[in-house]
């Protein structure tokens, strides 16, 4: 009979599930984010409380089996939020632990291959966000950006933006997942926000944003237009580089 382990949706929560599955020697097991969970018709389910220590032990175990680059793939793939990612990861973890050699890059294994594909997609979107995030200056001098990425890449952006914007307060907010990362000149923390009901992310409302904000957006738009060479126009190439679904972030495309 299959057991469904229900966890809180965090990576540590997932790793705690892996620990539990091992500990309880569960043969048929699946793991589900509590937000997506529906009571199964057959089988049993159990709610797993995230335990940092258990999660750490699984992670440390994986670490011994592979390079840090390969290890990172497990986390990246998890952030894809793919509906079957827990199974993919769990099967890959079983395979890794069962083998004496390092098999984390054995793309002949379907789970490892699937995992690497997910990783690639997440990595690509991370880079896109690093490029396409557009900060707007708020009245209380915070550089604010909203995103709505296909994958949950926000945790991956922290390092890049910390290094780059060490001397300004900034906040990147994921509208889809309703949380943000906020850097207050000292540290970066995960936060949730009460956004005003009529907050429109595509507008720059003067109630929230600094008066010069619109001026710089206008200058940037002007710049974007002026730097184009009309006689070389190539929209196909343009859209290949900046897929239309990202246009909503880009002030120059408004």
């Amino acid at each position, binding site marked *: 009979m299959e057991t469904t382990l229900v966890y809180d949706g965090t990576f540590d929560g997932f790793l705690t599930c892996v620990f539990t599955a091992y500990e309880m020697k569960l043969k048929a097991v699946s793991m589900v984010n509590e937000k997506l969970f529906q009571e199964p018709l057959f089988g049993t389910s159990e709610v797993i409380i995230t335990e940092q220590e258990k999660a750490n032990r699984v992670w440390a175990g994986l670490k011994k089996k592979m390079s840090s680059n390969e290890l990172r793939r497990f986390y990246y793939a998890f952030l894809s939020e793919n509906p079957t990612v827990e199974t993919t990861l769990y099967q890959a973890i079983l395979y890794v632990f069962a083998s004496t050699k390092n098999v984390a890059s054995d793309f002949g294994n379907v789970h490892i291959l699937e995992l690497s594909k997910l990783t690639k997609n997440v990595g690509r979107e991370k880079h896109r966000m690093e490029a396409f*995030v557009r900060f*707007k200056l708020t009245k209380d001098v915070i550089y604010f950006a909203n995103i709505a990425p296909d994958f949950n890449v926000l945790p991956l952006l922290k390092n890049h933006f910390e290094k780059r914007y060490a*001397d300004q307060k900034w906040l990147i907010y994921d509208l889809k997942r309703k949380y943000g990362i906020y850097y207050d000149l000292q540290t970066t923390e995960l936060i949730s926000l009460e956004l005003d009901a009529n907050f429109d992310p595509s507008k720059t409302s003067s109630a929230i944003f600094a008066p010069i904000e619109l001026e710089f957006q206008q*200058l940037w738009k002007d710049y974007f237009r002026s730097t184009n*060479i009309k006689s*070389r126009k190539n929209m*196909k*190439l343009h859209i290949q580089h900046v897929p239309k679904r990202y246009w909503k972030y880009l002030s120059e495309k408004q």
Partner: protein
Amino acid sequence: MSFERVQEKLNILADAAKYDVSCSSSGSNRTNKNKGLGDASASGICHTYTEDGRCVSLLKILLTNHCIFDCAYCVTRKSNDIKRAAFKVQEVVDLTINFYRRNYIEGLFLSSGIFKSADYTMERLVAVAKKLRLEENFNGYIHLKSIPGASDELMREAGLYADRLSVNIEIPTEKGLKLLAPDKNRADFIKPMEKVKNEIILYKNEKKLIKSTPKYAPAGQSTQMIVGASGESDMQIMYTSNYFYKNFNLKRVYYSGYVPISYDTRLPQIGTPVPMLRENRLYQTDWLLRFYGFNIEEILNEQNQSLDLDIDPKLGWALRNLHEFPVDINKADKRMLARIPGLGMKSVFKILNARRYRQLNWDHLKSIGVALNRAQYFIVCASNQFERRDLTSEKIKGLILQNSKSKYTAMLSNQLNLFG
């Protein structure tokens, strides 16, 4: 800063700067210092793309489009009847910082028309970079144009603040330069380039002894040549390029298809299409020289002064040298693998790796990503199926063009891909 004034200047001075195709922001190792602003070590990000498909990574502007010179191919030339404008040093600093803080750009690419004198102009460019670094603690990317004829002292200072310096040769031949830019001479371009080259060498030597030696132009030097403005041949362009790569340790040479901007009879007339495919072939040749181990003489010489437009230069070389083929994929050395049409360097490395475990056949090559429609005529592998007919160059070319028609029609119209 006054918004309307800056807006007008930006429109004029960004428009005038756009013909410089370089927008690269990579190659520097400058990191964030003292919790300041910016980090150029991870640069290379394209924050957006223009509608012509070019990467926008830097705020690329002229400090001014006033110019005392009259180079025929340039919109900024003295005799051209256009609106002129000039930024103040502080205005450029403010624009750069504010664009950077909003994550629009990786940094600044500042060039200028020459007003008063070379040194006077260079001094202002250096002042912008200096202010950004010292007053704003800005660690993003800065590319400064070296003004031909600028003094050694200024060029030395420029390199202390800039990540990259460049002088555009623009016209590949001295004869063309005399015709189109009579005020300029080669020696004026070479002088600042020479100085920067020597300073970089000096920096590298000192760095070995004293760790704290201040950085000097960590992303090196580059230059640009205009293609199709002075009736030059591909051979002349690439020999000039090769000369500059070799003698000045350049990081990059850019090739910019001439965009007609004037009715001057010495130049292609307005409405003449930009030679984009030719530009692409020149870039491909550049890659063959820098990454594929080719010598310039193998690709362009007295018998072959121009590149084929319908096929890429590596295929062109292979067709002229059929006696070097077929190559055995499972035995050939790296140098020869790199010369097979349809194989990029990535595929070459994958082949070298994979063949240690097994003999490679057509299926392996396909999954590695080799463009077999081109490569098949030039290789043998672990299979008894291979091209047995004794085909002539003309025949092979015909077959390849026939089988890859869609790609080449696209290329001939607009596409700008390097080797697939």
